[in-house]
């Protein structure tokens, strides 16, 4: 017998005895439901986010500030270019990591710096030398201040975590209210063929492992800038 059959055999044997329903202090609960909890129901439990764009923007700004994220709502591509050039000069960028995309291509062209492009395969040392990694994303989550990105929308696994500064370029219509909506989006967008990597990025890399004191940039980026057009 294979180990798979051994383990499954022990599980099936063990499950012949029924366990009491969970939260037994909760009277009248039968066997728990076997269906997905609708987003509308989950939404009533999680932290509140309003339903309009303005409410969601307020929530996103609040989370971003708490997470020490630089968030910019921009009105035009010109403003975006100005912001990026400002960052380039202030931080003395020498090279950027980038992937193919409408906004990222625009940014790379405006910045006029040497680039490491990830979509066609890259050297790790080359990406490590970049001053910033610029990516697009799938969504911004108002509830938590998160950026949702995948191997496909964010130029792979390393671009958004290896360089010391991660710059996200997003569009206003990518702002979603909360986590249930973000997961629903992943399902409708990718269900036929999921990317091998999906991540919610909530602030710059951090640690509290030394006396619970917050330090940014533990292993990943020290800075996270989100530009929303």
């Amino acid at each position: 017998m294979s180990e798979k059959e051994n383990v499954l055999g022990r599980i099936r044997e063990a499950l012949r005895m029924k366990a009491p329903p969970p939260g037994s202090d909760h009277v009248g609960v039968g066997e728990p439901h076997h269906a997905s909890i609708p987003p509308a129901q989950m939404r009533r439990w999680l932290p509140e986010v309003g339903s309009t764009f303005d409410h969601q923007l307020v929530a996103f700004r609040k989370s971003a500030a708490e997470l020490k994220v630089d968030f910019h709502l921009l009105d035009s591509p010109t403003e975006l270019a100005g912001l990026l050039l400002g960052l380039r000069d202030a931080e003395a960028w020498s090279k950027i990591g980038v992937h193919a995309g409408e906004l990222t291509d625009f940014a790379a062209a405006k910045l006029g710096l040497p680039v490491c492009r990830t979509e066609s395969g890259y050297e790790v040392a080359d990406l490590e030398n970049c001053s910033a990694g610029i990516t697009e994303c799938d969504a911004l989550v108002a509830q938590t201040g998160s950026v949702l990105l995948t191997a496909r929308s964010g130029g792979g696994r390393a671009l958004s975590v290896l360089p010391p500064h991660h710059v996200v370029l997003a569009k206003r219509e990518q702002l979603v209210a909360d986590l249930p909506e973000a997961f629903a989006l992943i399902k409708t967008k990718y269900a036929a063929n999921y990317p091998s990597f999906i991540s919610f990025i909530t602030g710059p890399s951090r640690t509290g492992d030394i006396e619970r004191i917050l330090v940014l940039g533990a292993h990943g980026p020290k800075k996270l800038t989100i530009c929303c057009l």
Partner: protein
Amino acid sequence: MKTPAAQFKVQATALTQDLRHRQLIQTALGKYEVVRDRTKAAFQDWPAARQAAAEIKWEAVNHLDAHLVQLVRNLEARGTKVHWASTAQQARDIILGIIREKKARSIVKSKAMTSEEIHLNEALEEAGFEVVESDLGEFIVQLRKEPPYHIVFPAMHLSRGDISELFTRELGSAPTQNPEELTMIARRVLRQKYITADVGFTGANFAIAETGMISITENEGNARLTAALPKVMITLLGIEKILPRLEDLALFLPMLATIGTGQPLTCYNSMYGGPRQPREPDGPEEFHVVLLDNRRTELLADPEQRDALHCIRCGGCLNVCPIFKNVGGHTYHTTYSGPIGSVITPHLRGLQDWKHLSFASSLCGACTETCPVKINLHHHLLHNRRNASKQKPSFFERTAFTVFSGIINRPRLYQCAKILGRFFQRFHGLVKGTRLDPAYAWTQSRELPPIAPQTFKEYWRSRNAGPGSPS
């Protein structure tokens, strides 16, 4: 060799009196409680979320076979290699086998309690491989050749001074009292390791049956780098980590963060569905998932305590446990410490050797109250106590209770005992707090209250006899 119980007693006694230790733990957990409560308060209906989380985990664990089959089918469909291990030994052999086959030399690891459970680092080092922990806390305790102190905060018992000293000794860095500088020293050392490592090893927080994904929650980005750069990725997954559906994470990720560290959401929550796919720029060429039983099925076979497998390893019960806060994480000598460790270790390593952990509890119930998936923790401590004495009754306890019930059931005898007790307590001062004292276990660090000069019965009688008493 001391028994685990004797060792526990000695170390617990020493640590409860260690004021420096107490100070460090109180600083760390004091801050935690404040932030956790604030984050929890942002939920519109925490009790409903908790009940739903408990029900989802119940469903996952009580149909574990079907969910595992579904998980494995979905993982394999996208090129992941799945291995099954019944025992720790098998898991070590599988992992060593993959590493040898790939002719790998160095392994970079992100935090995984399952690997502590099977003592993977020792096995890898013995076989001649270089293995580096990349989570800052784990890196620190690895340099100290210690197991993690806490399942979420591995280096919680150390001050920045301790860590600076350690880095100076082991890494040759200049001493500093600045946590940021200390973190940057570790960052520089570990950066090179990610880039040169042949194999990346991770644990897992959840496994999604419906989509065949491994979900990893972290703050530092070390797991993301471990899963991005090396050519081979290995994940060691306890079979109970299953969740049925992808959208269940919309509930579990914020709940794990809230109770685990007090954050609304942990910095990186990443889902890995396979090795690098066509038209993806990077990621490992091979992705191996090792499913670990290691006596989890024994816990599953106990319907009364099966809900202990709902555990999402948030560490919340450790953080609120008065025992953990006093005796510290290392005193347990188990992979999982705190209330959840006391509940499951007897199932994983033997009831008689580890029952003392279930007795080392005030049964205050703070663990049960905080648990985000409603594990009935403090009742399980009672269940362990009951099972242990049923399996191997203690002669002393049985005799004591026989004598006690003999006296308490006979009013005259009880009267006599009370009079004798009051009489003998006058002489208690002579032996109090010494080993001759029959109540030594209590009086070595506490006062024994005097037996009241008058019983309630005596008082009632005198009250009724007196003037003005109600008729």
